[in-house]
C-alpha cells in the first residue's frame, strides 16, 4: 500500500510538471496558468474518476461474486455515452450539456439494466443482461455517428473509451456534487455487500435479502459511474483493473480499490499525454490495454463463477 501511495505522489507531480513545457515550480504568469488552469483540474478529475470507478468495480465484483463484473457491463456508461454522443452528433443544444444528457442517459441505461435484471437467474445472467443493454446503447451511439457522418470524432473516442482532454475547473463542480451524494450511499451499502460476498444462503441466514442488497449495490455503482462518464467518458476497464490489482497487493477494501483506481488513471493519463507527444492518446485506450494484460495473466487462474 505504501508503494501505491508513493506511485500516487510521483504520478501527481508528473501530471503537474510534464507537458509542452516542463514546469516544476511555476514562476511566470503563463506557467501558473498552465499548471493551475490546465493541469491541476485534469489531475483532480483523473483522480476522482479513477477512485469512483475503482469503488464501483469493487461493489460490483463483490455483490455479483464475479471478478469480471465491471461497470462497462452495467449499461450505465453505455447509456450516458449514447445520450451525450447522440446530442453532439445531431447538434442538439440541451441546457447543461454534456452533464444533463449524460446523467439522464446513465439513469435510463442503469434503470433498464436493473429492470431487466430483476428476477434473473444468478450472477452470470445479471452480467449478460447488462452487456445486452450496454451493446444496445453502443448501437445507438454508433448509429448517431454513422448517420450524421459526424466530424466530431473526439465524441466517439471520448464516450466509447474515455478521455480527460480539455478538463477545466467548471467541469469539476458537477463531479463534486455527484460525489456528495454517492459517497454516503457507498458507505451505507458496504456492510451488506460484505455479507453478499459470503454467498446468498449465508447472507440470508444473516437476515439480508440478497436480491435487494444486490440491487442497492448496483444502484450505488451506477451513480458512481455516471458521475465519471458525464465528464470523462467510461475510462475503459479501470473498474476491472483497480480492484483486481488491489487484491493482488493483498487489500480487498474499498479504500484500496479507490486509491489504486485514482493512481492508475492519473498515471495512465500522464503516459497518454506524453508517450506519443504531440499526439494525445485517449486515456481509456491505455487502461484498456493494461486491463487486457492483467486479464490474460489472471483470468485462467481465477475460480470459476
Amino acid at each position: 500500500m505504501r508503494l501505491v501511495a508513493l506511485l500516487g505522489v510521483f504520478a501527481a507531480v508528473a501530471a503537474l510538471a510534464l507537458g509542452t513545457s516542463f514546469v516544476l515550480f511555476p514562476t511566470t504568469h503563463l506557467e501558473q496558468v498552465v499548471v493551475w488552469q490546465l493541469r491541476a483540474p485534469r489531475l483532480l478529475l483523473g483522480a476522482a474518476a479513477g477512485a469512483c470507478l475503482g469503488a464501483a468495480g469493487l461493489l460490483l465484483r463483490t455483490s455479483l461474486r464475479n471478478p469480471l463484473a465491471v461497470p462497462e457491463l452495467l449499461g450505465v456508461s453505455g447509456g450516458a455515452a449514447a445520450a451525450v454522443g447522440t446530442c453532439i452528433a445531431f447538434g442538439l443544444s440541451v441546457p447543461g450539456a454534456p452533464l444533463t444528457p449524460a446523467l439522464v442517459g446513465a439513469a435510463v441505461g442503469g434503470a433498464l439494466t436493473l429492470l431487466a435484471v430483476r428476477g434473473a437467474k444468478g450472477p452470470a445472467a445479471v452480467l449478460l443482461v447488462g452487456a445486452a443493454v450496454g451493446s444496445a446503447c453502443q448501437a445507438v451511439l454508433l448509429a448517431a455517428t454513422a448517420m450524421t457522418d459526424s466530424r466530431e470524432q473526439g465524441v466517439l473516442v471520448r464516450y466509447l473509451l474515455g478521455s480527460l482532454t480539455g478538463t477545466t475547473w467548471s467541469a469539476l463542480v458537477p463531479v463534486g456534487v455527484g460525489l456528495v451524494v454517492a459517497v454516503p450511499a457507498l458507505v451505507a451499502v458496504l456492510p451488506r455487500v460484505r455479507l453478499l460476498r459470503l454467498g446468498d444462503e449465508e447472507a440470508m441466514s444473516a437476515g439480508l435479502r440478497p436480491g435487494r442488497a444486490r440491487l442497492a449495490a448496483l444502484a450505488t455503482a451506477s451513480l458512481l459511474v455516471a458521475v465519471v462518464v458525464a465528464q470523462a467518458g467510461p475510462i475503459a476497464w479501470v473498474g476491472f483493473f483497480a480492484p483486481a490489482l488491489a487484491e493482488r497487493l493483498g487489500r480487498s477494501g474499498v479504500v484500496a480499490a479507490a486509491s489504486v483506481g485514482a493512481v492508475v488513471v492519473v498515471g495512465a493519463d500522464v503516459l497518454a499525454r506524453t508517450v506519443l507527444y504531440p499526439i494525445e492518446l485517449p486515456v481509456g485506450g491505455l487502461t484498456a490495454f493494461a486491463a487486457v494484460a492483467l486479464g490474460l495473466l489472471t483470468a485462467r487462474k481465477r475460480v470459476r463463477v
Partner: protein
Amino acid sequence: MRIGGLGVLLVVACFAHISVGSTGAGLLALFGDDAGARMVVWELRAPRLLVGLCAGACLGLAGAILQAAVRNRLASPEITGVGSGAVLGAVAASTVGGLAAQPAAMAGAALVGGLVGGGLLWVVAGRSGDVAVRGVVVSAVLVGGTLLLLTAKPQLAGAVSRWLLGSLAGRTWEHLAPLWPVLVVALVVACGLAGVMDVLAVDDDHAHAVGLAVVPWRTAALVTAALATAGAVAAVGATAFVGLLAPHAARALVGPLHRRLLPTAALAGALSVVAADALGQVVGVPAGAVTALLGAGVLVVVARRTGGFG
C-alpha cells in the same frame, strides 16, 4: 412446412427490400423501358439485397455452429470475440493497411482477426465453462482496440462506426464476389459436420463414448464459424446479434438436429438482415442498428432463462 413459412417470409422481405428507396422502382423495372430505373435496381438494389442475404446467412450459420461447438446457447459471433476480432481485422486493413477497395483482402484480414478473437477467448475461458461472460469481455476489449485505431485516422469516425455497427449502404457486386463462395464453402462444410455437431452439442463424455475425438472436430467447427463470420463482416460489418437471433429462431422451428438446424439458421439469418435493412432504409438508420436493438432484447430474454450457462 415450417421452413416453407420461413421461405415465404424471406421472399416477401426480398420484394420489400428491392422496392424500398428514394425512387419508386421495383423488381418489374428490370423488364421495363426506363433505363434509369433499371440501373437503380440492377446496380444498386440487387447487389445490396444479395449481399444482405449472403451475409445474413453466413452470420446465422456461424451462430448455429458456435452454439454447438462451445456448447452454450448464448454463443454467437458477437459474444465469442470472433465477430469483434473480425471487425478489428477489417478496420485495421482498411484504415492502416489501405485495403478498403479490395474486398478479398478485407475478407482475409477479417478471417485472421476472427481467428485471433476466437483464440483469445479459448485462452481466457480455458476449461472454466464460463464462455458467455468471458466472451463478452474479450469482445469489449477488441472493440476498444478498434476504437484505438480510430485515433490513428480520426477522419474515419463515420466509416469505423459503420463497421462496428454493420451497414449495407453502398454494397455493390464487387462486395458480393468474395462473399458468396465463402457462404457456399461454409454451408457445405457445416452440413458435412452436422452429425459431429449433434454429438459435440451434448457433452464431452458422450462424444468420447461414441469414439469422437473432441478437440480436432471442435477446432474444425470453430474455424468454419470464423470463416463464415469473416466473410459477412468484411462485406457489411458486425451486424450485431444476427448470429444469436437466427439459431434460436431456427431451433424453435425445426428442433435441435443440426442436419435441419444449420440450413434453417442460415435462412433465418438472411431473413433478419434483409428485413432489418429494409426497415432501416425506411427509418433512416443502418441495418446493424435495427438488429442490435432487437437482438439485445432477445439476449436479455435468453440470458434470464438460461442463467448464462444454457
